[in-house]
């Protein structure tokens, strides 16, 4: 669909295996709106990158391009050194290696919690049923919802559903996990239970891209903060640097609005 070949020569040599996700000169439009403008972003293996910025800055779109839920107009995206396939079986295989957690959970409503976590293993990984169930139960235990395994998603609280969604993504043994505002649809008292699971993941060495408004999580878990505004990456820094000493006016303005009330 999108021509991938008309891109200028990459500045660096072929990315080393240490760079798990590489976005190079990525552009995307929604009609007249230029939502992603010349995005260059490299995420190393084991790195936790938190993407923050005002609404409509393109954070979620950026996150969704990494497993091609959104197509891009130009530029390249490499995952583990291989370009993102345009469609078909190759793309499906790549998506299986990229875990995704959505704002609205998106658990399969007609399947039980256990079935949700088993589905990808059975149908994509072709694991046998017993092994899949064992793994699903241990993952549900890890995110603290083992006792809800036989319920349907609608019977769970938002926080529980989001933790199941994390378990569902983890069941595929992803190389990288994408979180698209995972706590934005949650009641305040449920946010922490989800953030705790994400903290554990980060400490366990999972490569993560997290779009969020949770500045506390960014401070404590992120290796790097990426600040986006108006479709551009305005600033990239360590959390300490970014929160205590932002360089750009746009970031200063943003932080002053969210941190002072």
């Amino acid at each position, binding site marked *: 669909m999108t021509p991938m070949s008309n891109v200028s020569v990459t500045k660096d040599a072929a990315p080393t295996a240490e760079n798990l996700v590489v976005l190079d000169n990525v552009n995307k439009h929604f009609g007249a709106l230029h939502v992603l403008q010349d995005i260059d972003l490299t995420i190393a293996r084991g790195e936790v990158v938190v993407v923050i910025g005002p609404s409509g800055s393109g954070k979620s779109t950026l996150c969704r391009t990494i497993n091609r839920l959104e197509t891009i107009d130009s530029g390249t995206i490499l995952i583990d050194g291989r370009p993102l396939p345009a469609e078909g079986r190759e793309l499906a295989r790549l998506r299986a290696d990229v875990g995704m957690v959505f704002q609205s959970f*998106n658990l*399969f409503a*007609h399947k039980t919690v256990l079935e949700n976590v088993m589905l*990808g293993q059975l149908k994509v990984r072709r694991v046998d049923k017993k092994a899949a169930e064992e793994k699903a139960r241990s993952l549900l235990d890890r995110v603290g919802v083992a006792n809800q395994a036989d319920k349907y998603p*609608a019977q769970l609280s938002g926080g529980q559903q989001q933790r199941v969604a994390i378990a569902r993504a983890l069941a*595929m043994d992803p190389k990288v996990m994408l979180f698209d505002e995972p706590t934005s649809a949650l009641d305040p008292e449920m946010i922490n239970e989800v953030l705790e699971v994400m903290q554990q993941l980060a400490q366990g060495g999972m490569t993560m891209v997290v779009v969020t408004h949770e500045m506390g999580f960014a401070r404590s878990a992120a290796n790097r903060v990426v600040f986006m505004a108006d479709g551009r990456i305005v600033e990239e820094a360590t959390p300490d640097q970014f929160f205590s000493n932002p360089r750009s006016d746009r970031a200063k303005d943003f932080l002053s609005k969210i941190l002072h009330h």
Partner: protein
Amino acid sequence: MSDETPSDEARARENVFDFLDSGQYDVLGAFWVTVQLTVYSAIGSLVWGTILAAMRVSPVPLMRAFGTAYVNVVRNTPLTVIILAASLGLFQTLGITLAGGSDFETIGFRLAVLGLIAYHATFVCEALRSGINTVPVGQAEAARALGLSFFQVLFLIILPQAFRSVVAPLANVLIALTKNTTVAAAIGVAEAAALMKTMIEYESDAIFLVSAMFAFGFVVLTLPTGMLLGWVSKRVAVKR
């Protein structure tokens, strides 16, 4: 019919009911053919209608175009025309017998089933398509993000949820189908309506009774269908 004339009352009673005792009309047998037409056509319509719906939501433009064209042409053609076309066109002109041998009854039955499937699948397709629209787009995105293929997303995630939300409209299609099997009489299938026509001709003194009997027969077939599927509809509804 008897032509002896005892008392008026006895004669009236005899005239009204004798066609049931005479063994001349196999009413249950005729309704059995109706049931068979309905069951085979329902299964076929469900399968073909699902395939059509898959075509209409497929990413391949040619598939979408075919699905749309088929549904709009067939849905807007009278069923009688379709059934007659199956008989006159497929069988009598092209000699297609659908492996029905040389038995006209079997050939007619199979062609009628074919026509009923071709027609009712369009309604199944459109009901399903409206069901697909009730499934939030996030369900498909989550499934794609797991690495499921287009067909896996459709058949494991989208259609199961779509079916659950359209049980009631599908019940309407099934009830309409049950009654529409009567059109098969037009190509000589010995189902209920064909027998009714015969009986009205030979039992003209009992037209109301004959008509009421067949109407009752169809109610017996369709009323439980509607009630059962209404119950199923509530049972399988997806909670969000």
